[in-house]
């Protein structure tokens, strides 16, 4: 609070006024700019600055090596080359991360594609040719490429947490059924359509201004500052918007911004760093692939009795966000299920690959995939329909997670499950599909239902804070600024709605200014689905401070015979009465606790719930499949912005289905000269979902009467949870594969379940007959 005059106008965070602007189904606030090509992204600004220099990396073509010799002088013979940036140019700390294990200019190459140095040119073509002229000689070192190799070599990094409840060994000893298995699955490339881009310039006082495609402007600012050896106040980072982020721009932009800033300070000219798709894919981190071994026990009713598991994530060459990703994976291995006793070990493989990082779900999907794979594989062995097995094991009210947090609103799991079962006609379609399959030997359909429970808040309590700046101008117009970034998720749309609701003004009176670190400092990443919760809380706080100061003004106008003064008249009067018309808002999530050492506490404000039913058809000749229909019921609380939320659910679902069925990261695992190279480093070799992968029928319903106490206007986060609804597609594929063989047999399905993987799975089912 910035004033002692605040009147008690603060309302409970979740209470929504009758005439709220939140809850209206608005399209994206920038949609008209998007569709007309007027929306500006960082690289679109290059032509608006004079004399911009372009940067191009020199990428190592080995997976692991010491740099024996670096000779940049041939680059200077290339016309148009202005400067080559190397470690010797760094005035501050030569590191691009917060863990100090990511040298910006390395002397040891840690992965194929690692940037050795950067060439600045008058044109991108000059920089490219200059980079090709740089001579680098290597002393090669042995490279660890796969997780399995890392496990064998005991190549690990960072913390090795264990999540524990009860005595799992004992529970397994007493269990009716005990099953073991291994579940290994691939990572995922973000493939935001806009590749990484930073544009840096320096003013007359040495102030550095970096425009970057970043989800975390404050951390970009901090890394730029430490590379340059200057305080944070000498660096400003702005993000107009991103062409997609998905977590890939949470930590990965920092080093690239630092290169641009370093170049700008050394040359005095603006410097642009924009990665090509191949550079982006070969240099920046991805979703972690995991390898899991497990032993699970069930009682005679198919209820989970105990679980022992070891999860090994493929961290790549440096830690970056691997530790919190692993924490979230462990905290989500239960997904929506009560597991009375468990012991789950986690560890992070160090491999000679890109440094794997945040990606929508942040380890949650990986943990949940393990338990869903377990249930999908074990159901036939238990003699249960997978849907029945899952339904029986859902959390009930009063139960707690393995880390000790009560599962608030556990009844909503059953609610979304039952609602989507009914709206999808699950029982009738199950029978219909069985009939269809009996009549079609060469193609099979499958159907599956899976639930999602996803914890909302940053696991690390400190990050759950946000700031905002709200200006009311003399004419009554409102300008808001907050610490969150816009990457397509509709955060700005929601924040405009929150401000209009809080102030009680029409939406058109509110405008939003770009995210920048000199407006709102010390922000957290726009991540963990928490952008609207946190920044919405901060905006509401700022608005209520202003309303508090306006209340006496309103009273004075009423006393003066003007009881119906308009907002504009009120604001004008307040100005004349010398009342502050702007405020800085702040919000922190209450009630969180987390002990990373014991992996216990209540790290999440609440859980988001959802359930999906998916139906697929598989071609028995090729393994190719189509997704015929998807039904979703999802809990977003009382939606702040229904069109935005449905868009997040649909988009997250399709992105999750891409991870699970299509997107196939391949590294060269041979011992040849290309060892460690990402062979799927382009749109032509790495396939994300296209129109043809969209479910043919796609019904998304928001759970009604889903008010969430303690969250801004009763809403819930929506960015990440829907991604995991896509497990239903994978389980439906498993169901279809099983239909090629005799009933009651388990189906093992590789992930991603590409047509090839599905073909091998259905072939195995066939051969069992």
């Amino acid at each position, binding site marked *: 609070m910035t004033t002692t005059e605040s009147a008690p106008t603060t309302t409970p965070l979740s209470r929504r006024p009758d005439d709220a602007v939140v809850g209206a189904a608005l399209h994206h606030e920038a949609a008209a700019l998007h569709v007309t090509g007027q929306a500006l992204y960082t690289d679109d600004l290059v032509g608006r600055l004079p004399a911009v220099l372009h940067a191009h990396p020199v990428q190592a073509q080995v997976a692991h090596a010491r740099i024996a010799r670096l000779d940049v002088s041939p680059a200077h013979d290339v016309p148009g080359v202005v400067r080559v940036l190397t470690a010797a140019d760094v005035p501050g700390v030569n590191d691009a991360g917060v863990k100090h294990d990511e040298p910006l200019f390395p002397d040891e190459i840690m992965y194929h594609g690692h940037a050795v140095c950067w060439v600045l040119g008058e044109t991108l073509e000059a920089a490219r040719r200059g980079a090709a002229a740089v001579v680098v000689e290597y002393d090669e070192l042995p490279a660890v490429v796969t997780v399995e190799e890392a496990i064998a070599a005991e190549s690990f990094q960072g913390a090795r947490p264990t999540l524990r409840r009860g005595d799992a060994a004992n529970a397994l000893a007493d269990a009716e059924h005990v099953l073991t298995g291994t579940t290994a699955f691939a990572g995922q490339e973000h493939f935001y359509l806009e590749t990484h881009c930073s544009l840096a310039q320096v003013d007359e006082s040495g102030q550095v201004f970096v425009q970057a495609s970043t989800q975390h402007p404050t951390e970009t600012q901090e890394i730029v500052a430490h590379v340059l050896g200057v305080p944070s106040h000498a660096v400003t980072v702005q993000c107009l918007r991103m062409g997609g982020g998905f977590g890939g721009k949470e930590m990965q932009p920092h080093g690239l911004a630092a290169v641009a800033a370093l170049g700008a300070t050394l040359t005095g000219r603006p410097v642009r760093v924009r990665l090509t798709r191949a550079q982006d894919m070969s240099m920046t981190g991805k979703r972690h692939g995991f390898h899991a071994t497990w032993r699970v026990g069930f009682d005679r009713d198919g209820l989970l009795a105990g679980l022992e598991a070891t999860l090994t994530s493929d961290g790549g060459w440096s830690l970056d966000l691997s530790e919190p990703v692993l924490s979230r994976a462990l905290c989500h291995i239960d997904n929506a299920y009560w597991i009375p006793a468990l012991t789950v070990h986690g560890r992070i493989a160090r491999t000679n690959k890109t440094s794997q990082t945040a990606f929508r779900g942040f380890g949650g999907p990986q943990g949940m995939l393990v338990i869903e794979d377990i249930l999908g594989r074990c159901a036939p062995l238990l003699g249960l329909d997978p849907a029945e097995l899952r339904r029986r094991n859902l959390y009930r009210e009063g139960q707690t997670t393995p880390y000790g947090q009560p599962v608030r609103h556990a009844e909503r799991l059953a609610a979304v499950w039952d609602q989507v079962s009914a709206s999808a006609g699950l029982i009738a379609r199950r029978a219909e599909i069985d009939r269809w399959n009996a009549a079609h030997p060469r193609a099979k359909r499958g159907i599956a239902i899976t639930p999602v429970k996803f914890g909302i808040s940053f696991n690390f309590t400190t990050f759950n804070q946000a700031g905002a700046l709200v200006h009311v101008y003399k004419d009554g117009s409102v300008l808001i600024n907050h610490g969150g970034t816009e990457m397509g998720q509709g955060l700005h749309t929601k924040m405009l709605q929150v401000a209009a609701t809080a102030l009680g003004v029409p939406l058109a009176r509110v405008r939003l200014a770009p995210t920048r670190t000199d407006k709102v400092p010390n922000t957290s990443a726009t991540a963990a689905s928490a952008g609207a919760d946190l920044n919405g809380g901060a905006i509401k706080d700022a608005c209520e401070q202003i309303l508090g100061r306006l209340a006496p003004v309103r009273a004075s106008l009423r006393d003066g015979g003007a009881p119906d003064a308009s907002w504009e008249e009120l604001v004008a009067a307040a100005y004349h009465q010398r009342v502050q018309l702007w405020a800085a808002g702040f919000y922190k999530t209450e009630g969180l606790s987390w002990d990373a050492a014991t992996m216990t506490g209540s790290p999440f404000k609440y859980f988001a719930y959802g359930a999906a039913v998916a139906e697929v058809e598989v071609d028995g000749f090729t393994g190719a499949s189509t997704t015929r229909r998807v039904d979703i019921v999802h809990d977003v609380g009382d939606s702040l912005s229904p069109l935005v939320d449905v868009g997040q659910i649909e988009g997250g679902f399709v992105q999750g289905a891409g991870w699970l069925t299509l997107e196939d990261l391949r590294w060269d695992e041979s011992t040849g000269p290309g060892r460690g190279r990402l*062979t799927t480093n382009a749109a032509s070799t790495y396939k994300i979902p296209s129109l043809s992968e969209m479910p043919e029928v796609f019904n998304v319903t928001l759970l009604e009467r889903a008010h969430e106490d303690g969250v801004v206007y009763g809403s819930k986060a929506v960015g990440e949870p829907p991604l995991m609804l896509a497990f239903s597609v994978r389980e439906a594929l498993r169901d279809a594969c099983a239909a090629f063989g005799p009933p009651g047999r388990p189906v093992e399905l590789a992930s991603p379940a590409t047509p090839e993987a599905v073909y091998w799975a259905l072939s195995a089912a066939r051969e069992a007959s």
Partner: protein
Amino acid sequence: MNSVVVNGVARSLAGVPPHTNALDFLRAGGLTGAKEGCAEGECGACSVLVARPAPDGSDTTEWTAVNACLAPAAALGGQEVVTAEGLGTPDALHPVQRELAVRGGSQCGYCTPGFVCSMAAEYYRAGRADDAGTPGGHRGANGFDLHAIGGNLCRCTGYRPIRDAAYALDQPAAGDALAARRTAPPPAAAAAELRDHEAAYLRPGTLAEALALLDEPGAVVVAGSTDWGVEVNLRGRRATTMVAVDRLPELRGFDLTATELRIGAALTLTEIERRLAGRVPLLAALMPQFASRLIRNSATLGGNLGTGSPIGDSAPVLLALEASLVLVSAAGERTVPLAGYFTGYRASVRRPDELIREVVVPLPASPLTAFHKIAKRPFDDISSVAAGFAIDVADGVVRRARIGLGGVAATPIRALATEAALEGRPWTADTVDEAAAAMAGEGTPISDQRSSADYRVAMLGQALRKLYVEAVPA
């Protein structure tokens, strides 16, 4: 003709380096709506509209969406281009823009201008009105063919609102200037050249001039630039001379008779598709699976065969159809059977001084045909295995079998052992099983990032069985 009309305003190409692509040229001029997403024609974020000859061969114009990242800027000389900025403004949205905006069709917005242009091309497609009223498959009740936007990737929305926007479009209103433009002839394909100290982009006006230019050392023939553009953008390839042949009349013939189909090598796949109108079923089966509409709008058969790629999708089909190529040089013409054309990985019998002038397909084709493409995605993907079949069954006996394969050897190949295992045999499941076993032994499949060798072999073994079950003789 070293200028181009963009959104109604002439922009000079003078001083533009010849290897500059149209996207970079437009963006450097301040039109930053079109974006680079992949620089290889796979994502469509760079899609813009170009006024092209109507694909049906009439002397009218079709607004055609192309990947600006692949087209050389020089190829725009004398042409008319419309970008997302030119279609509408935030205060006066084009119908396509309005539907996308209000339905939540944009989230991050980066792919959106490209979607807008691809959708606008279909919005203005002259034949769309005729297709209206029969929704189904990938077609809306308004005649909108979703394949028009199959080459555009969106990472945010999951596509449903984009599809809904596409299906909500009306026909262009009276007075729509871009709709009116269609009825006039397209811009002429004038001779042009663009040079700097390193390279030249040359568009000769006649075949003779083009053939003379092939003698220049380092000359590269370009038509749609859908392969060459990728080489330039991703692999840094540069040529001293690029010879544009895409508008040479001698390479743009089309003739379909009862006994023969002759396709000019520089016709785009879209033009071929429209002019055939399904009259050669195997080619009709190929077209929707060949890359994407954005690529088909520029790519040519000559280019697909000229690069000699082992995974080009047209070769397996044309091998099954027993096509021949007419090669032309300053010394004259010769006709080469496609089956004898490929000599090794991206190598052929075509001499450097020769152009592919046309593709000749004998007709009628065998009645039982199919095209199988094995890929991760059914559309807008590159095949791991492709197979074209043309089989003639009479009185229950296989009279003739021609099978072309891609992706299983260094070149596209004919499945000769399989053909032999079929011909003269009864068209039964037993014969098919035996022939399928032979087919599993065709070629020398390898493992790569697209699929394993084992899967390729398995798919070879399955293809004939799938054909037997699914194909219906015409």
